[in-house]
């Protein structure tokens, strides 16, 4: 099943079985069915619950707070994650603060779906991965499935069982991907999962035996990582393990502590800029807990620049597969082959 279809199915189920679920955002209605077709067919099927809005990200985000306080379970689609910036005040100073500053007297079970990620040539304002920016907002939960997770299931759980304010991140490149579940897992990779509600996926190209390097990443980076794992295996027989959590904040340290402890070489991969990026936080926390003393720990991410439109330039600013590969080769001194 494709990533986008998994989401569409889950939304269909949510709307069908829960009249308090409403889905709104820009250009959602049929026949267009959303900029990335995630909501295709839903406005026709659930006309009272699914509707398109004016281009007003701030108002839309702010309204989700009011809707949820009023007893609804709103799902807001932000067409490009970059546009969350238009509503940062409503997110930062209103939606995420209400519950706590009002002493838990009200709840705001809001789910905002936002696309992130580049490598499509959409340019500086349509390609960003703003997770680190959003992660610095207290009380905001950030969920970011990869194609090794079941995004539909995660979405359902998040809407029905999790009453936090949540941003559900969907990487654009993942939409047309076949989900890597059961028989669709590539032949060189084995997969295990943690038992958390937002499970962490563990990948290995060596049957989880004595990996030489541990990669930690999330979301759409799984595409490059999958190819990398296969290439590293075929070209160097490099034993690689990968951790892909499905939730970024709060970060599931329990799911990674043991693997980190047992690794001597760890590389964090993100598409957001490295500077003040996602990996910095994780590494700081791991360092404080003494889990990475004396180990090779590295980060790879975007340069501190806007993301260019042209493919060649985009591939220089965003971390390319070849860049990550040469970094791994350098860290592990792989030229011995």
């Amino acid at each position, binding site marked *: 099943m494709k990533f*986008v279809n998994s989401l569409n199915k889950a939304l269909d189920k949510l709307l069908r079985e829960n009249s308090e679920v409403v889905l709104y955002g820009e250009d959602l209605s049929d*026949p267009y*069915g959303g*900029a*990335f*077709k995630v909501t295709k067919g839903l406005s026709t099927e659930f006309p009272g619950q699914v509707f398109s809005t004016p281009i007003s990200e701030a108002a839309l985000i702010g309204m989700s707070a009011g809707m949820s306080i009023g007893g609804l379970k709103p799902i807001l689609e932000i067409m490009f994650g970059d546009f969350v910036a238009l509503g940062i005040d409503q997110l930062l100073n209103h939606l995420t603060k209400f519950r706590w500053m009002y002493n838990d007297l009200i709840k705001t079970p809001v789910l905002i779906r936002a696309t992130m990620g580049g490598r*499509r*040539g959409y340019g500086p304002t349509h390609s960003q991965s703003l997770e680190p920016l959003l992660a610095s907002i207290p009380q905001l939960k950030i969920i970011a499935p990869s194609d090794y997770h079941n995004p539909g299931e995660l979405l359902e759980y998040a809407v029905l069982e999790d009453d936090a304010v949540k941003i559900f991140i969907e990487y*654009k490149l993942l*939409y*047309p991907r076949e989900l890597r579940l059961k028989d669709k897992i590539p*032949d*060189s990779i084995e997969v295990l999962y943690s038992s958390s509600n937002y499970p962490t996926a563990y990948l290995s190209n060596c049957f989880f035996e004595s990996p030489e390097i541990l990669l930690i990443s999330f979301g759409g980076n799984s595409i490059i990582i999958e190819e990398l794992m296969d290439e590293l*295996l*075929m*070209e*160097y*027989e490099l034993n690689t393990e990968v951790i892909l959590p499905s939730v970024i904040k709060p970060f599931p340290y329990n799911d990674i502590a043991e693997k980190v402890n047992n690794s001597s070489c760890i590389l964090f991969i993100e598409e957001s800029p490295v500077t003040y990026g996602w990996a910095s936080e994780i590494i700081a926390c791991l360092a404080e807990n003494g889990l990475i003393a004396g180990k090779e720990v590295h980060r790879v991410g975007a340069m501190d620049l806007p993301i260019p439109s042209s493919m060649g330039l985009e591939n220089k600013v965003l971390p390319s597969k070849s860049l990550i590969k040469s970094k791994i080769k350098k860290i592990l001194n792989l030229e011995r*082959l």
Partner: protein
Amino acid sequence: MEKFFWIPFEDVNDEEATITQLLYESGDYVEKNSIIYSYETTKTAVDVESGEIEGYIFYFIDEGQAAKIGANICVITSDKDYKIQTQEIQSLDSGKNQDYRLTAKAKLLIEEKKIDVKKLNLKGIIREKDINNFIKSKSTITKSDKEKIKYLDRGDTFIEFLLNDDNFRQLSSEEKIRKYRDNGHTIGENVTIMDGAVIIGNTITIEDNVQIGTNTYIEVPEIVIRKNVSIGSNCDIVASQINIGEFSRILNNVLVDIAGGRYFDSNFVCGRDCLIASDVFINACREVRLGDHVSLSHRSIVFTHSFWQSVLEGYSANFGPVKFEDNSQLGSGAQVLPNITVGEGSVIMSNSLVTSPVAKHVLVGGVPAKIIRKDIKKSLSIGQKLRIIQRVFDEFADYLHTDGYSIDKLGDLEIETTKDSVRRNILIVDSLKKLSIKKDIVIVFKKEKNINEKATEVFIVDDKSYLGNLSELGRMLLGFFRRRGILFYPGE
């Protein structure tokens, strides 16, 4: 007149699109400006119209499948019987159909060791260690064989003596044999070590009726030579261990060496009744093992190593044993390279070069050798065998005649011969029960009870054995039949 339709590049950012609907079936007639198919990408859904063309539509792809941008989806043609060429049918869903993939390290190892991957039955991801495991499993060396390299015991005074003393070789055979026995080696009866010949070893065992020809030099730490073996003259045999089976013959000028380096399995071993013809060269830095009744013809060559140029420059170095299974034959001038097994009953044509293992019962030839014919060993019926033996028998009778015997044919299967006034009869029967009186020499197929009552000398075909003391005539028959591969060994 025909028009092809494909998904244009400029509309989409994707590399593939899903064909969501085919509005017709292949072969249907389509009017102008009809919608013929719909496709969907991550950005858009499009209905495609036929435009200003009408005709018969043929689709190259199924509904629901993913199609590459730019590849043909369908054609509208005036040809009612348009045949879809197979290369037009395209779908991204056909993935790699390779059964296995090799890592770079595995490929390197396969290159180096010249392994034939087709023989390996590979599936999935193959790593270097998997190839290593295969190599180990194919090795003929068993764990118990993993002993240390055997060297001549240079601390042994007799061995030093044998190595340095020029005169020993010129002693008579009896004197040499006595000296060997005095120094603890086992030498049987009726053994001859001709002039100039010397055997140097830590442990020497020679059984009865063995002949070692003139000027033959054997320097091997462990030597076992079974009975009735003859080794010709001017042979030069150096190895770690040799084991020659009974009735085997090594002719003149045979060389056995350990170029490539002495190793724990630098052995030369052969079973019974083998023939190592003249001028054969055997390199035994790894084990060369012959089964029973194997022939290495004149000037044939066996190598257990191959190296010269540097492995750092992409050249290969190989070391490995060679095995000849029972009843196989290496043609004259032919050569076998390391890590080869020649299968049972197979024949390698003269002047061939064997570079890969040879199966059973095949005839191979050429450089590099390829199979010329398969299944060269056939199972014949009794009737066929009888006819063949009968023909051989006829030829034998003619041969006796040329050797001064007078022949009386008493039938297809029986003759009476006379030489120097001694009359003997020879016959072939299917069962001894048919005999009323005792015959001199009888050839039967199967062993039966109370054979010695029916014949003085009996040759049992299926058993490959003979019973009774052979007369001169019997020995002539033995040799004549042997030269046609019909073998008889002394039976109980």
